[in-house]
């Protein structure tokens, strides 16, 4: 998907994958790239995922739907997907459609990565 409006950069921090998204997550474009990336990670056994949304300029209905759907996919695989660096627009969007309470949201990447150890420690 060379011409996708969404670019996804992947970094591993221990057993946590950090996906830094930039661009737009749209119907039949970025949403499919995002889905593929999540499925690739799960296929490699990586189910602790942090998604950095700082550089995402636009998310449409299908992008939001895909994020919610993949959150369930990851949780069903025994992991979790956490969001960081929400822009004001993205924060307002997720709040408006009541998805903020569904995702765990953090201010920065280190906090989100650390939270996976806390979760593991309390289980």
């Amino acid at each position, binding site marked *: 998907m060379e011409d996708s409006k969404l670019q996804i950069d992947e970094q591993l921090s221990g057993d946590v994958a950090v996906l830094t998204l930039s661009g*737009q997550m*749209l*119907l*039949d*474009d970025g*949403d499919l790239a995002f*889905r593929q990336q999540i499925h690739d990670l799960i296929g490699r056994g990586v189910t602790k995922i942090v998604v950095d949304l700082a550089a995402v300029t*636009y*998310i*449409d*209905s*299908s992008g*939001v*739907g*895909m994020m*919610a*759907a993949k959150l369930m996919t990851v949780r069903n695989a025994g992991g979790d997907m956490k969001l960081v660096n929400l822009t004001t627009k993205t924060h307002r*969007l997720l709040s*408006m*459609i009541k998805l903020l309470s569904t995702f765990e949201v953090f201010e920065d990447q280190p906090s989100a990565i650390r939270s996976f150890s806390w979760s593991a420690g309390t289980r």
Partner: protein
Amino acid sequence: MMSRYLALSIVAVAAVVLGARVWAERPVEQRGGPALEFQGYWMGVDPVDGGDARRSIILGANGKYALAGRDTVFSLCDGTEHGIGTFDDGEIVARDVMQSNNLRIVCFNNGATVVLHSRFELINRDLMIEHATRSDGTPVSTIVLHRVSQD
């Protein structure tokens, strides 16, 4: 007296028979029930992008529903309104639920096309919810639609 009674009886029986025929000849969808309720012009707002969504739905002679819809924001069409969504095979699949697996969204500006599943759930006569999903069930959009047209 007897002939008067007979005449009244004939009139009464004729009225009942005629009334029953008129009732039987009315289209099913005009007698109430879920089938008629989807037909009309509906409007709503996509809560994600703020786009204005309009849907024209009619019941065809073949018993299938046809839809023509437009949005003021088609992300598939680079965020423009230069596109249309259509299907002509909508079916009632449950009480107050109509769906099509062939909602085709076509962009006029860039030629892009995508086919989605769409499901319409009536809440009451004037309110329904449209769910659009990919073929694998991944949600694409959920829009509350309000009936605009009147019978």
